[in-house]
């Protein structure tokens, strides 16, 4: 049953316009009213996105809830949006996370509350826009616009070195995106259209594809982030306010993975096949190298940031090992498990990293320190908090029955199909992930109360419990019964693999 409302547009514009309204009207009302309005808007958007899930037809690979209007007629640029089984889970993750962030900022943010809440709502709409844009210019606009609220969130509500972090963040991501724009313009010249579909259909020689692939790679690799263009992330996370870290880790990092799925693989399949060794190499470096780096971090936020990079390595590994699997089995569909594993990993990482950052936020709000050595014995004074953090730490270490296991498991078992050594190196995360997460947990939470500041800590409030409990439910539900999430994406992933299987250069040679 499809509703007649333009649901997808509502999911984009309700938070954006609502956010603007909160900023401008909110300066004249009480902070409490501002927060309530923001919460209502976030919940309404979440409800709308759940309608998307209800009405979504998982048996179809076509873009659903599509809307198409002329935007700039002269250049044939359209306001064209729609989602498939790959975008839908990411949209849901975005709307869910925003609600969490609004509630999490409830009592913590005292300065310019209306702007803070407004920025997150606008960011939400822009991110949903990125996941649903079907016109490449529209995509690019959402993609770049998204940087602005995030830049402000870190720059205004961030920590002491926020200026260094924001500039690093902005330059890194902006530099990457510029290359993407060049690639899009070149593709427009070839395809005669900015429509994503046309770009996916256009015939390109291998060298053309390689240049385009590299341009896309610069944009997406920074966002994921892949080694060695990851160093902006720890700095950005450390300086960002808790809400900013949550959105950054939970959603913005997924933009990179989504870009590979939506642009690199279907538009330049032959180049992706040619460069797959590089992508796999960088992914495995992320898993292993960054795992070691995470181990020695003294700052909890940095540790979780590095752990994010390591976990995102599974996403890129899951995506780019399809060519090796194809070489071994002769069938691209055998790679479906890896791609779906990558997708699940993105969603799950959204929940878990968000939860971990919220846990650090809970401590930071009380002690104003992120340093592991300032803590110790937190469980004695915050038993409820300790229980939640235990769950999330275990999920971060990939424990079965939590969401953290599902993606890693699917990627590791299917990487064996590509190459034993991929599986071998990827599986080291079982040890490294447990080591850095639980070692941190041990030093922060277990033990005797370390100092008088820890002794004065109070356990989590009702609001904090609500936030952490919602994420705990999500992490467990996805771990115990991930089938509904995977069922949504099967057909779309199959479609993607069909597109990748169709070499563009062979068509070029034929014509």
């Amino acid at each position, binding site marked *: 049953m499809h509703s007649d409302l333009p649901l997808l547009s509502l999911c984009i514009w309700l938070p954006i316009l609502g956010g603007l309204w909160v900023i401008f009207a909110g300066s004249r009302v009480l902070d409490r009213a501002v927060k309530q309005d923001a919460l209502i808007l976030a919940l309404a958007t979440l409800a709308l996105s759940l309608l998307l899930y209800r009405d979504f037809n998982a048996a179809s690979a076509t873009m659903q809830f599509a809307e198409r209007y002329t935007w700039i007629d002269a250049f044939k640029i359209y306001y064209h949006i729609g989602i498939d089984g790959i975008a839908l889970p990411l949209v849901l993750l975005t709307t869910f996370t925003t609600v969490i962030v609004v509630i999490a900022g409830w009592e913590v943010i005292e300065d310019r509350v209306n702007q803070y809440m407004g920025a997150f709502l606008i960011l939400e709409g822009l991110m949903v826009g990125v996941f649903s844009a079907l016109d490449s210019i529209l995509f690019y606009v959402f993609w770049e616009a998204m940087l602005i609220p995030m830049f402000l969130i870190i720059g205004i509500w961030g920590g002491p070195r926020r200026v260094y972090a924001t500039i690093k963040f902005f330059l890194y991501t902006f530099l990457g995106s510029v290359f993407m724009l060049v690639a899009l313009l070149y593709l427009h010249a070839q395809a005669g259209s900015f429509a994503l579909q046309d770009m996916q259909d256009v015939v390109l020689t291998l060298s053309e594809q390689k240049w385009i692939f590299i341009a896309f790679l610069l944009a997406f690799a920074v966002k994921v982030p892949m080694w060695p263009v990851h160093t902006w992330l720890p700095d950005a996370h450390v300086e960002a306010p808790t809400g900013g870290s949550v959105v950054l880790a939970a959603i913005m990092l997924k933009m990179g993975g989504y870009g590979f799925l939506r642009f690199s693989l279907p538009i330049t399949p032959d180049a992706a096949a040619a460069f797959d060794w590089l992508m796999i190499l960088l992914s495995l470096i992320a898993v292993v190298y960054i795992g070691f780096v995470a181990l020695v971090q003294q700052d909890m936020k940095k540790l979780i940031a590095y752990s994010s990079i390591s976990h995102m390595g599974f996403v890129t590994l899951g995506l780019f090992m399809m060519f090796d699997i194809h070489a071994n089995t002769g069938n691209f569909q055998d790679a479906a498990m890896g791609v779906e594993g990558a997708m699940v990993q993105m969603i799950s990482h959204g929940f878990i990293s968000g939860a971990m950052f919220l846990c650090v936020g809970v401590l930071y709000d009380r002690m104003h320190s992120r340093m592991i050595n300032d803590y110790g014995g937190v469980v004695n004074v915050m038993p409820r908090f300790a229980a939640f953090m235990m769950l999330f730490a275990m999920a971060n270490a990939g424990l079965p029955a939590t969401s953290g296991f599902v993606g890693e*498991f699917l990627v*590791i078992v*299917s990487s064996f199909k590509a190459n034993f050594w991929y599986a071998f190196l990827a*599986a080291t995360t079982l*040890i490294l992930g447990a080591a850095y997460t639980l070692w941190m947990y041990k030093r922060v939470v277990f033990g005797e109360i370390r100092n008088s500041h820890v002794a004065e800590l109070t356990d989590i409030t009702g609001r904090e419990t609500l936030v952490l409990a919602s994420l705990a439910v999500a992490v467990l539900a996805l771990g115990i019964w991930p089938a509904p999430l995977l069922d949504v994406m099967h057909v779309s992933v199959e479609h993607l693999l069909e597109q990748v299987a169709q070499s563009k250069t062979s068509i070029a040679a034929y014509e």
Partner: protein
Amino acid sequence: MKDLCLAIVLAPLVGAIAAGLFGRALGRSGAHWITILSVGFSFAGSCLVFRDIVFSGVEPLNVVVYTWLVSGGVPFQIGFLIDQLTITMMTVVTFVSWMVHIYTIGYMHDDPGYQRFFSYISLFTFSMLMLVMANNFVQLFFGWEAVGVVSYLLIGFWFKRDSAIYANLKAFLVNRVGDFGFLLGIAAVLTYFGTLDYAQVFAKAPSLASTEITLWAGHDWSLLSVICLCLFVGAMGKSAQVPLHVWLPDSMEGPTPISALIHAATMVTAGIFMVARMSPLFELSTTALSVVLVIGSITTFFMGLLGLVQHDIKRVIAYSTLSQLGYMTVALGASAYAAAIFHLFTHAFFKALLFLAAGSVIIGMHHEQDMRKMGGLRRYMPITWITSVIGTLALTGFPGTAGFFSKDAIIEAVKLSHTPGAALGYWACLIGVFITSLYSFRLLFLVFHGRERMDHHTQEHLHESPAVVWIPLVALAIPSIVAGLIAAGPMLFDGYFGGSIVVHAEHNVLEHLGKHFHGAWAFVGHGFTQAPFWLAFAGAASAWFLYLHRPELPARIAGAFKPIHRILENKYGFDAFNDWFFAGGARGTGGVLWRWGDAGVIDGFLINGSAKMVAWCADAARQIQSGYLYHYAFAMILGLLALLGIFVHGVFA
């Protein structure tokens, strides 16, 4: 039966959730009642299913409960395979767990974490049941990791103690090393079999027996050897085989009921169970069986020796557990799976008994665990003493006790085996009998006999533990005596396990052994004439001589063999090496990669370097734009001259 099985699994989970989340509302007695009743229910249910499967000859149950997920066309499911092997494990697990629940009322009586403890042990029971009841590898892995986590939580139960939170992290990480191999094994199974369902995998295994895979160029490996070795790495972690044994002695930091339940009777036997479950795969790889045999032999012998130099009562029993797990592993390697499971079965009773008795002693001694400060306790704690004697006799294999049947079966089986390494296994097991007897009687004599060495205050307060503590001891002592007499014949030789264990004809040592088996009593009579009995007797006599008759001798012997004694005290240096190489190495690697790689090369050189480059260029360019007119005029003249020069040069050249 499916519904009953579901109820058996879920009851402890319900108990765990109730005691864990609503512990404060339920209160102490509410928490222990709900968990004890739920685990008791599971035990009763297991008995019913046991009757159906074993006595009524009902077909094994293999059902899907729900589909966890489908990916790439492969369904990953949660389901049950209830056959003779499973139901044996279920009954043992629920019984021992039930006893430990009851015992805990007494042992944890004064602990502030009372409800939390009951929640954990019920959760453990749930996890362990999920593990043994699985009909596929995914669920096996679920249970496998879940018991690991509960073990982690329980070792660190007293989270204020530094030693406890060190031990639990160590236990989890060492287990993760095993899981690393285990997961690779599962990945290999999925890749080559296309399914993770036991029945389908086992059916397909013979057709892949000669498949070879290339791990690195020029070296082909038998697929099944790779799979079995990877899976066995997992078993080495959980079942604490050398060199992944290092976590088990430290796990004694957990409360004693846990040492009995998790670190002796059930969880640590998961690896043994898993290999037995995978017998259709292991039977196809002699290489893997041989490795299993050798690792088991090493563990049996060398870990037993360490039991001789420990002073902490729990650690002696922990090393004994390691050594006994080695026996089981040897049996697996010799393809005597039934003997391994049978030893697992009897060991669960007598080792849980020994641990709980040690716990009873520890309560009596006001949490003193050093045996040098005990002695003469039999006068104060008669029930604990008698049950400990029974446990010790069973452990050392006194003819007629449960341990006698299972251990002798292993020794006889490995003697007949032709798998490479069998001779090593035989001698390790045989000498192991002497060592077992020596450290077991040493413990018994040091704790219960001789003169009282505790301080006056403790001695005054010594008395037998309360009924909730000693009733489980008695309940475990009974099967420690009779389990062998009743079960040895059927479990070892009469096809008790049916189709749940597969043994190839040329490996089938138990069948060979069965030809000489003429009933349990005859076996007992025969036992008195055999080497193991005399070795055990010699061990007991030596212990008597060294620790009761001439108690000054052990110190002199230790002095005379100082280098060997030091090696044993340092536990062969495994811990020191791991701390230095793995823990230190990982931190060092991380530090180098971070400071040189991330901060140095990437940020310092590439990122900030390029930023500095931009700044430097801008700086240089700014120098030129000085704003003085004569600078610009001078530059223009220079430029003009240069252009003129080029022009003139072009014309005349």
